[in-house]
């Protein structure tokens, strides 16, 4: 049957003149069945879009279900989405383009079953979109299976004996659920059974769209609709069933309307100039002029450190400082925290590699320098140190000194010393002083003093870090 719309009613401008995207010969007729509510709701929406003058800035997200092809008809921007995901797709679109008008159009299986989370979350965030929800209590597109809104006792192809609440639960009332949320500004359930109800729906459609135009937030209009094909009824029987049965469970009405009370929220996106980028990205110090630019030693240099102890001793920071200092000397460096299988055994540790060649594996298996601040770490890593390497340990925290005689062993009560300076947290910088002294041929201690506050930016520790570094450096000068 071909319905000659243009002879009966004027088509809204927001509908295409002919439905070319349908791809069949009936370019004036919709793909919807007689008695289906989609066509009426489409028309009400299209008229409202035209009347508000928002056709160019409107984007319609169509769902999966019978209205998957809404883009056949709406002469607006169109996005077709995955089953149930229209509110998420709409969220992404609207966030990317806040000046647009975004309509998410969904059916009951799409919105209340597979997409129940997406709709609740979009509503709860108060996304600046308008959702139109066709509730016809059945899956139309796939051939009449049970929907989350199918009534108890209603027969469908997957509830051949009627929906049984003990098996499938009860029909879900989405408008009532959405209305309990804080963010939505407007929630109404309408129907399309007669001229009076269509007029009500028309008003609701306009109110919901107007709310978005005025930047008020999320609005939701549920429309009870007939599905004579799915229900195996004539269009007239379908209307009667909505009136006498469906609308008695899904009561029409306004469930929430706070449009007037809510303030308009206009999102303005300000794009910074390219010059501001590095600053905004926390890397502006790159442009800082440096008064000390150390040069690396010529020849083959590499250092592999394992730094280990309890969490909270600042050992990952110590590794970070050493790696930064080496980077400042134009060496290749890598820093790897204990991660994955390395975390076994309860010690916090990091691997630092320094080389004048490209660094391969970042994990240090055989350190040239081992720094340890607790006993389990010493036990774990002592035997890994290369012959001729160095072990620096906190002799105040580790009562059994390393037993290796083929490595250089430096023990000092770094934590106690730091405590005397005013903070045990500075123990790591005392160790830094020791390490800097040992590597004074490689690393400029003047540079380290300059760069330290630029690496550890917390101003509260600038002074004590410098003091601790000097303490370690002097200690090494005297005792090593």
């Amino acid at each position, binding site marked *: 049957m071909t319905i000659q719309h243009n002879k009966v009613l004027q088509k809204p401008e927001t509908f295409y003149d002919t439905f070319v995207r349908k791809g069949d010969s009936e370019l004036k007729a919709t793909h919807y069945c007689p008695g289906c509510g989609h066509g009426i709701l489409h028309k009400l929406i299209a008229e409202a879009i035209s009347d508000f003058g928002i056709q160019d*800035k409107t984007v319609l*997200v169509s769902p999966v279900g019978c209205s998957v092809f809404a883009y056949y008809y709406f002469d607006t921007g169109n996005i*077709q*989405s*995955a089953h149930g995901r229209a509110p998420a*797709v709409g969220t992404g679109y609207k966030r990317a383009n806040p000046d647009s008008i975004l309509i998410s159009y969904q059916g009951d299986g799409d919105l209340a079953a597979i997409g129940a989370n997406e709709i609740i979350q979009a509503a709860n965030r108060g996304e600046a979109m308008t959702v139109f929800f066709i509730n016809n209590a059945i899956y139309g597109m796939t051939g009449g299976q049970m929907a989350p809104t199918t009534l108890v006792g209603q027969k469908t192809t997957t509830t051949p004996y009627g929906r049984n609440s003990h098996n499938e639960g009860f029909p879900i009332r989405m408008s009532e659920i959405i209305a309990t949320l804080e963010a939505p500004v407007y929630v109404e359930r309408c129907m399309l059974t007669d001229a009076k109800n269509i007029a009500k729906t028309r008003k609701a459609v306009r109110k919901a769209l107007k709310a978005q135009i005025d930047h008020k937030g999320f609005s939701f209009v549920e429309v009870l609709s007939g599905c004579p094909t799915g229900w195996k009824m004539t269009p007239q029987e379908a209307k009667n069933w909505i009136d006498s049965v469906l609308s008695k469970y899904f009561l029409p009405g306004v469930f929430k309307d706070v449009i007037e009370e809510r303030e308009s929220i206009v999102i303005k996106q300000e794009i910074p100039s390219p010059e501001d980028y590095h600053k905004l990205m926390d890397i502006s110090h790159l442009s800082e002029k440096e008064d000390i630019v150390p040069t690396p030693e010529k020849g083959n240099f590499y250092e592999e450190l394992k730094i280990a102890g309890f969490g909270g001793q600042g050992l990952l920071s110590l590794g970070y400082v050493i790696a930064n200092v080496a980077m400042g000397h134009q060496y290749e460096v890598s820093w790897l925290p204990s991660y994955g*299988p390395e975390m076994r055994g309860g010690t916090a540790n990091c691997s630092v590699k320094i080389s004048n060649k490209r660094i391969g594996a970042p994990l240090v298996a055989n350190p040239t320098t081992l720094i340890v601040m607790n006993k389990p770490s010493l036990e774990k890593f002592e035997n890994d140190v290369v012959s001729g390497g160095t072990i620096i340990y906190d002799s105040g925290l580790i009562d059994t000194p390393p037993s290796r005689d083929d490595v250089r062993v430096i023990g000092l009560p770094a934590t106690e010393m730091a405590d005397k300076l005013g903070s045990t947290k500075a123990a790591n910088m005392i160790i830094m002083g020791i390490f800097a002294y040992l590597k004074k041929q490689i690393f400029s201690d003047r540079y380290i003093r300059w760069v330290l506050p630029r690496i550890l930016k917390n101003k509260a520790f600038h002074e004590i870090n410098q003091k601790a570094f000097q303490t370690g450096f002097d200690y090494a000068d005297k005792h090593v």
Partner: protein
Amino acid sequence: MKKVLIKGNDAVVRGALLAGCRNFFGYPITPASEIAEGSALLFPRVGGTFLQAESEIGAINMLYGAASSGIRCMTASSSPGISLKMEGISYLAGSELPCVIVDITRGGPGLGNIAPEQGDYNQIVKGGGHGNYKLIVLAPNSAQEMCDLTMLAFELADKYRNPTVIMADGTIGQMMEPVKFPQPVTSFPKKDWAVKATAETRENLISSIELDPDRLEVHNQKLQKKYAIIEEKEVRCEEYRSDDAEILLCGFGIVSRLLQSVVDEMRAEGIPVGLIRPITLFPFPKKIIDAYASKKNVRFFNVFELNNGQMVDDVKLVVNGRKPVLYYGRMGGNLPTIKEISAEIMKNMRQL
């Protein structure tokens, strides 16, 4: 000092911003959460949007919506989260939407663990979603590449209207290395196809549905042509000391860093090993591997992976029986040691 010592995950965020990415949609998961956290911190500062989605499914569909507008946008997750995103990824590929997806891989299957594994190769490179699609897949192995390849990913995504994946393991994400940041990108390709909510783009439709089998076949053929062009033009591969190598090691991501150390150590002992590191996993460096497979002096290929042997299949397809292709892998999030890898190579040398 014109470099910053920074974690790979943080380098991804900054690379994205420099590439002009404006929208980030994500869901927390270890070991990728730093990308979401870094984005939450920095995106609002450049007039962009960070949104923590309700789920991975929400996030990937938000990406679909944002990408439809033509804006540069990104999401990041880790293996189980990527599995959840697969539906959306198939739709993105079908609708030809440019976007960047970061996968900081972890141990599986199932909940697995948070340690570095490369078990996502098949789901990312071969397509974990339904349909005849391909993703462009980049596999960085340093913090610098986490920045640079993220920027490249946006460029390639736009150029081919194709979702592009940065696939790195947790080690690359957690490791800090010096990164030199490039200047921000200021000119972007025109996207005439995008739905921009303007009069000029009102006709545009973003969709992956096509009921007519003939038309859907045409669409699929068009996609395959695009993938063929990508295979022709966008291969990136690092060859390390491989010119005169008799034994070719092959690995990507963190494994390639280990293999680089192995090559250096074995070369120092006079063993002629070299490394082929695919930087693009799709397009796979077929021609490069093919050329080595034809070389007389090449004895065998040795593929190392942190999985049950996934990329090795692609190497075998290219080598096609001309040379032995051997595989060694660790799973569960374990990294092999340098010694372990060397011993495996030595064993293979003796046996072949």
